């Protein structure tokens, strides 16, 4: 088997050389992972506490902005007229029904970060207007027009009582 012809076969060397290079490259790539991964949010950041909101103080037609993990969250007490008009619309270029976006129809809870580039939209009668590039959202936080691609995000939240909501994963 190990005759000199096989031993001196240059292709065997080629194969060994290439195999070493491939394994070495894979090893280097694997060694990069801890560095790359270290830049992802740390565990304590991921476990950011939930935010409790007492909604009893929010009058009909009013909005309160609360901070949840560093992000603003809009809690809106919608008027009956607003609820009714939102029921009948599907929003703009990211259609979704109002019922899928609320837990109780008079309460709208959305993350107050424009889905375009992250500015904070300003509230008005008909919804929100983003000051940065003019995206317009309706009273269900759905994008109507402007450069923002998506509706305002509905965060995970739940009513713990009639007057209290908890934002964040329970």
């Amino acid at each position: 088997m190990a005759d000199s012809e096989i031993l001196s076969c240059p292709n065997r060397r080629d194969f060994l050389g290439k195999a070493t290079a491939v394994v070495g490259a894979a090893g280097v790539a694997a060694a990069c992972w801890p560095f790359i991964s270290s830049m992802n949010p740390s565990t304590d950041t991921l476990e950011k506490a939930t935010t409790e909101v007492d909604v009893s103080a929010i009058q009909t037609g009013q909005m309160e902005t609360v901070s949840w993990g560093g992000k603003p969250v809009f809690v809106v007490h919608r008027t009956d007229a607003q609820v009714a008009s939102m029921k009948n619309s599907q929003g703009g270029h990211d259609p979704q029904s109002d019922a899928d976006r609320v837990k109780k129809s008079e309460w709208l809870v959305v993350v107050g970060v424009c889905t375009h580039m992250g500015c904070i939209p300003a509230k008005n009668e008909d919804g929100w207007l983003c000051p940065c590039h003019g995206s317009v959202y309706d009273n269900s936080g759905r994008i109507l027009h402007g450069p923002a691609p998506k509706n305002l995000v509905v965060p995970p939240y739940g009513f713990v009582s009639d007057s209290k909501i908890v934002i964040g994963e329970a």
Partner: protein
Amino acid sequence: MVSRVIEWVDQRFPLTSFVKHDLTEYPTPRNLSYWWNFGFLAGFVLVLQIATGIFLAMYYKPDVNLAFDSVQHIMREVNYGWLLRYIHSTGASAFFVVIYVHMARTLYYASYHKPRELMWWTGQGLMLLIMATAFMGYLLPWGQMSYWGAQVITNLFGVTPFFGDQIVLWLRGDFSVGDATLTRFFALHYLFPFLIFALVGIHLVALHTVKSSNPSGISLADKDNIPFHPYFTLKDFFGLGVYLIVFCAFVFFSPNTFIEPPNNIPANPLMTPAHIEPEWYFLPFYAILRAIPDMLGGVVAMAVSVLIFAILPFADRTSIPGGARYRPIYRAMFFIFLADVLLLGYVGAKPPTGYFVPLGQAATLVYFATFFLLPFVSKAEERWMRARGLPADLQALFQQRPPRDKWNDKGETR
């Protein structure tokens, strides 16, 4: 004694021959104008930024609770802290002025042509690194503009198909720009200048291989080259003097020109300033970003608008040297492009409403059209120029050209 020390070193390291080859006797075209000063100036600004930056870092604290106050501390209590900071903040703008002029000169004389493609591309790499460094440095004072600028720009990466959200999360290390973001931006802002420094080294090695371009656009005969020292050391230092007069005027008399007022308010993640505007040097690209109504399209257009300069050595298909100096149509295109970039910068600073929207879109169209038309225009222009007969001084230059110019042995290209 000195000569013996030098001799001792020379036996172990090519010191004298290096200084001779690359500095004192380095052959430089004698017809370089003051437009050729800006490379040297860029190097000077880089060194000054690194120097002031290191001293600022001795007092700066990259922590969301301390950053803003530590900058105020530098400004008010640290000895000459105000000076270091104003030199650094003004220097960032000055850096862009200098490299933009340096680029404009290269465009005007079409110096990116063979054999200087690598000069052009390493220069492009330098520009990208400088942009990244400036962007990250801008977050550090942790003012309102710092915060929202970083928020908006990191958000742009969210358009990446499939992984958008993960990439934004990874860049920030948090769900919004926060402490992790600030600290990593500081670390990278400290690292990047050294990468820039290394790339400048490569840029210079390439330069000393292909030698400086010159306004005529063709390599000159040996008799038309003069040693770098003393002729161009003097010329560069004179230019530096003029530069420093302007620079110091800003540092000492109007240091807040380049600091947006909202940045004197500490960052507030729950409140967006009424009008977000990037630093002036990003405005043209920002205008292109906003000109496209679709977000993904806008981000792609912006990225392309920065990178597209790399195609110029191929896109400009003429064999007439000297760029705009001898080519009337190229010259017209150069000035149209320059005016267009200024217009984009103006639009980028305005709110995206009313007639600024179509204006920005038209300017974006002109911007890209320039690059896409260039291959055809440059060919047609050459045909037209040759039919009409080349200008006499250009003919004369062709005649004088050294017979076996190592870059021009085929045909009569640059």
